[in-house]
């Protein structure tokens, strides 16, 4: 059993980020898109933790703690907004909202 190296973590993080990215681009459902962004988030957070451990520097992990708590707050807010948007148009399709077009 080989040692789990830094790059393993980084690969997992990159895969998570890639999944999130593809999901965000392909999905039209607001909730799914939101979840995709969360997955990208976690990919990045994983990188931070890995590097923190690798450099034996705790600040990376503390960043992640902040990041998670902000993500949680953001999730609460975003889901609330999604509910609000759903009430307006009775759909979760992101393309239903294009008022901001130039």
């Amino acid at each position, binding site marked *: 059993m080989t040692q789990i190296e830094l790059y393993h973590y980084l690969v997992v993080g990159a895969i998570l980020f890639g999944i999130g*990215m593809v999901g*965000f*681009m392909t999905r*039209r459902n607001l909730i799914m*898109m939101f979840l995709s962004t969360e997955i990208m988030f976690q990919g990045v957070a994983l990188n931070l933790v890995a590097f923190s451990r690798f450099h034996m520097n705790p600040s990376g992990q503390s960043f992640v703690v902040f990041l998670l708590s902000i993500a949680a707050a953001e999730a609460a807010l975003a889901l609330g907004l999604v509910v609000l948007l759903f009430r307006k148009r009775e759909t979760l399709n*992101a*393309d239903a*909202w*294009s*008022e*901001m*077009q*130039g």
Partner: protein
Amino acid sequence: MIEFAISKPWLIPLLPLVAACFIGVFGKWLKGGAAVPAILAMLGSVALSVGLLCGFSNGTIERPLQETVYEWFAAGSFKVPAAYYIDQLTALYLTFVTVIGTLIFVFAAGYMKGDYGFWRFFAYLSLFVFAMTVLVMGNNFVVLYLGWEGVGLASYLLIGYYYPRPSAVAAAKKAFITNRIGDFGLAIGIFLIYANFGTVEYTKFFGMVAHGHLTAGQIAALGWIPYCLMLGAFGKSAQFPLHVWLPDAMEGPTPVSALIHAATMVTAGVYLIARCMPVFHADALIVVACVGGFTAFMAATMALCQYDLKKIWAYSTLSQLGYMFLGLGVGATASGVFHVFTHAWFKALLFLSAGSVMHAMGGELDIRKMSGVRKVMPITCFTMLIGCLALAGVPPFAGFWSKDEILAAALNSETTAGLVFGIVGVGVALLTAYYTFRLFFRVFMGPVSLPPNAGGHEASPFALAEEQGHGQGDHAVHGHDAGHVAGHDAGHGHSHGDATKMKLDGSPLMWVPLLILCVGAAGAGLLGYFGGAGGQGGWIHHFLAPVFGGGGHGAEVAVKATAHVERISHGGMMILSGSIAVVGILLAAYFHWMNRHAADIVGANLKPLVAFLYNKWYIDEIYKVLITKSLWVLGHILSIVDRYVVDGVVFMVGFGPQLAGYTLKPTQRGLLGRYAVGMIAGLTAVVLGVLYLMK
């Protein structure tokens, strides 16, 4: 008195200024009494001016008075003191300005009685005298410029006095702007003087010029300075090509015309050139002589065919001013100034007499509409006759002596231009005598025939349209409203049938000044012949000799250093000009008194010429098309350019970002997915770019 005048000469302009301010502030309550402070102030100035004149004359004052009252403004080495410089020339000017001014004020008190703007009128008149006295008293060019523009302002206000008349407003504007063109020249002259000599004061500047040792730049500047000053003088003294404002200035009330034409304003140009004679080189003097001679001729021809009483005198003023410039141009400075002096007397007399006629005839000025006026206005007829004799140059009246000197100097001049215009001047003398007596015989002689509203009132220009109501006629505002010219005290009740029985000379306020002016018009010329301290010249040459450097010898010797040839003797000249005047008068008597029909026949045969002269050589029309209209059109074009081109270009600059915005607009569709793709594409590009750079 002389001592007081020496110690406080600045009171001369100050008194009229104070009067002007006082009347301006309290005039509303002074009403008819507004003339009193103005006349009192004038009397004060007269006393001081005469004091100065006597001081110079009897030798109490030995050298010119010069003192700085305070420093007006200064920047760098450009220093302008509010200072006076009084020599014989100034004292002479001050005297006739204030004396004749006072007489005009008194006349105006009668003439303008009951007018709507009575007090306003006297405030302006006082302002006028203030500006004129400052003009001649300043010790430097900038103070002169103050007076110069000041008379411009006062004339603007006075010519436009009957402001409800559009023609009066236009004339006022024309006067101011034409004068401004002259002022422009004067200003450039001042700049040149300062830039090259570092001073604007007469004594310092002339001192440097006289002293010699000039740099090349200074010599070059001296070549130009006279021409600049000349432009200023031509504007103010209404010489061709800037003469157009003066005839129009007749729109003002008659005392104003008298003041502008006789004592003030137009004589300023002569003053300027006389004052600056030390810097006028021969070439510049030739130009002065040519312009003067040409104007004399042109204006005399114009005067031949006018029918408006005041306009005839206006053109004669132009013509006489032309004589003065001719005199200056051929170097007879003292003679030029002498002509200013005599002209002031008889022209004031003529204008005021014309005003008196106009006043009596209910505002009528057309000489075709009146005849035999001597019957109803004996005093005015007498004063007008004296004035006409003086203008025509009949010995021994005032005009004869001074004109004679100028013509003699011109004919004896070394320059061709002087000789040519001397001969023209002799011809002009004939024309002068003719048109002068044409007017006199037309108006005062012959059968009695008066315009219908003689003895009535001129319709007030100040009557408001709504108050005029229905009757648009001349009598519409008969005495029921303060807003009209109440005219004179002869009452309203004359029936026009017995016109000959009317006595229309007006109040003593009007005819007493006329009689006093008669004395001057008759006698002022004698000062040029008698009273000299020996030699040929009269008192005036003797008096002015310290200024112009002549030795008090009289006309021929007063000619500036330029040598002259003896073509005609003094006595011969006198005989020549005297006989020419008589010939002119006889011609006029034949055509306009004995046989008026003959004049009509001649006129009918020369119709195009008459029209040409009547329309003042069409110079006004030419200016209108060439200058006024074209500038006006240019203004409109520029206005359109401003709105569409200049603003348009600026708008186009603003349009650039807007265009960019429109171009990029399609990329912002509001679709979340698209934004995500864009974001990631951008991110990828950045990552690839960084990788590429790091490689």
